[in-house]
């Protein structure tokens, strides 16, 4: 398979237009996790986890203190 074919296939898959064989091919690839599994040391795992959780925490804190302005139609519907 070439990158061009893969681009077409993934594009069709995301748009929900792929044929069953393509869907099966992509889903099988997504399910295959037997090889190339790297075992990271516990320290590295903790570091990665902390980084991701930290970013999520920052986003939650920001969105809590800076909520998105509600559009006018949402304000009106909230009254009812």
């Amino acid at each position, binding site marked *: 398979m070439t990158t061009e074919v893969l681009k077409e296939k993934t594009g069709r898959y995301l748009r929900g237009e792929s044929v069953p064989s393509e869907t099966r091919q992509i889903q*099988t690839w997504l399910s295959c996790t037997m090889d190339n599994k790297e075992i990271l040391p516990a320290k590295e795992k903790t570091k990665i986890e902390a980084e991701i959780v930290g970013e999520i925490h920052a986003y939650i804190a920001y969105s809590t203190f800076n909520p998105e302005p509600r559009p006018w139609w949402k304000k009106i519907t909230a009254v009812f």
Partner: protein
Amino acid sequence: MMSRNFTPEQDLIDKLSVGDGPALEELSRRYSFPLYSYCMTKLDSPEDAKRIVRNIFISLWENRDRLPENFSLSVHLYTEVRKSVVQCINSKLKTSTNIQSIERKVIPGFSIRELQKARQPVQNSSTQKSRYYLPKITNRNYEEHWWNKLMPAINLKDLKQGLQSMLNMW
């Protein structure tokens, strides 16, 4: 030392649906590394893996008030991470970024041999041994089983004849 939280997942989801930030943080702490690890096996890019995991939890936070009645977090995460991996590959191919990495890492995974491997049933590794001793089952003949030596073989025809003769006697 990392503190551990043993709150059941359903309680955390209930808290999340009413806008409890620490509940989402706890859920992300539980699932972020397995999701990151999965993305790494597929994309081999730490930046993309982190971004995908972060975006999945952020979108969960943004849709917290629209969670369905019987919401399954594991199913949701499983679906989202797979979709995000495909989206990431597709956008990389569209923008022609890191094509070499895709050619090296992703394309070989689509070979027939690799896909056939995925369809094979999961097998225990050779190092893992059974905890219980199971006797070796051999294909023995009918006569070799000791209980068949003590009891004569019952033929259905003989049984029928015996019953008929008993009925005739009555």
